[in-house]
C-alpha cells in the first residue's frame, strides 16, 4: 500500500508515468528529477505521509529505493 502511495507521489511530483517509477529511478538521471522537482517531491512526501523529513534525509533521498529506506525511519513500512 505504501509502495503504491510512494510511487504515485513520485509520478505526481516529477510529472512522469508510474511505470517509470522503479527502485532504480535515481536523482538527476532523468530530466524531470532535477533539484527543483526534488523540492516538490519532498513537499509531497511530507504532506502525503504527514511527516517532515530531516534535511539530511532530503539530501540523501537519491533514488526511489533510497526513499523507501529513509521513510522506514519515520515508521512507514514497505512490504
Amino acid at each position, binding site marked *: 500500500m505504501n509502495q503504491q502511495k510512494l510511487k504515485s507521489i513520485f509520478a505526481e511530483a516529477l510529472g512522469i508515468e508510474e511505470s517509470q517509477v522503479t527502485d532504480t529511478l535515481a536523482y538527476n538521471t532523468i530530466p524531470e528529477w532535477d533539484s*527543483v522537482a526534488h*523540492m*516538490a517531491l*519532498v*513537499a*509531497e512526501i*511530507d*504532506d502525503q505521509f*504527514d*511527516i*517532515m523529513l*530531516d*534535511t539530511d534525509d532530503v539530501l540523501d533521498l537519491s533514488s526511489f529505493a533510497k526513499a523507501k529506506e529513509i521513510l522506514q525511519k519515520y515508521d512507514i513500512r514497505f512490504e
Partner: protein
Amino acid sequence: MLLKNKVVFITGASRGIGQAAALLFAEHGARLILHARYAASLTETIEKVAKVSSISPYVLTYDVKDFPSIKNSFKAIKKEFGRLDVLINNAGVMNESLLGLVSDELIGQTMETNVHSVLYHMQYASRIMMKQKEGSIINVSSIAGTNGIEGNSAYSASKAAVIGATKSVSKELAPYHIRVNAVAPGFINTDLIGHYKDERLEKVIESIKMKRIGEPKEVANVFLFLASDLSSYVTGQVIGVDGGMVV
C-alpha cells in the same frame, strides 16, 4: 481585515517589533503562532492580543539556535494548522563590538541566531507553503545590513546575509507563488536601543531626516503590507523603515 484566518508565525514575538506585529496581525484576523525563547516572556504579548482578538495564539518556545527544535516546531504547526500562510523571521540578537574586539563566540552566536535560523525557518516553512502554492516570508534585516553601522560589524554582516538569503530564496520560491521579502528597520524604539542615552541618542536622532525614533508599529505596518495580498506582486525586495536615516 487583511489577514482573516491566515496562519501567521512570528519569531521573537515577546517584545518590540515582534509584539507590535502580533497585535496588528491579531487585529486583522490572523491565527497567530507566537515564538519566544521562554514561555513566560510571551505573557505580555498574549494578554495584549487577547484584548483585540478572540483567537488564542499558539505558542512555541525554543532557542532559535537549537536547529532540531525548528524542525519540531514546523511539524507541530503542520499538525495543528495544516498550513502556514506567513512566516516572519523576527528573532535576532545585536551584540555591539568594535572590529578588534569581535570574538569567535560573538560571530558564532550572531550568525547562528540571525542567519542560520532564518535559513532553517525558511527551509521548513517553504516545505509547507510549496504544497499550498502560496505564502509570504518576511525576514527582518536592518539598516545595519544595508548600510553598515560602526561598532556592529558582526551584526551588520548577519543582517546583510539576511538580505542575500532573501533575494536568493525569493527567486527559488517565486514559481510556487511564495513571496520572500526583507524589511530593514532603522532606529526603532525597542529594547535593542535601550542603551542609547543622552548625547549618543541625540546624535542618532540628528542623523534621521524625520528627526524622531521610529515606533515598532510603524515596522509592523510594513509587515502587514508584505503579509497581505496588498503586496501580491512584490517579492525579493528590501523595504527600509527608517525615517530617512543616514548612517
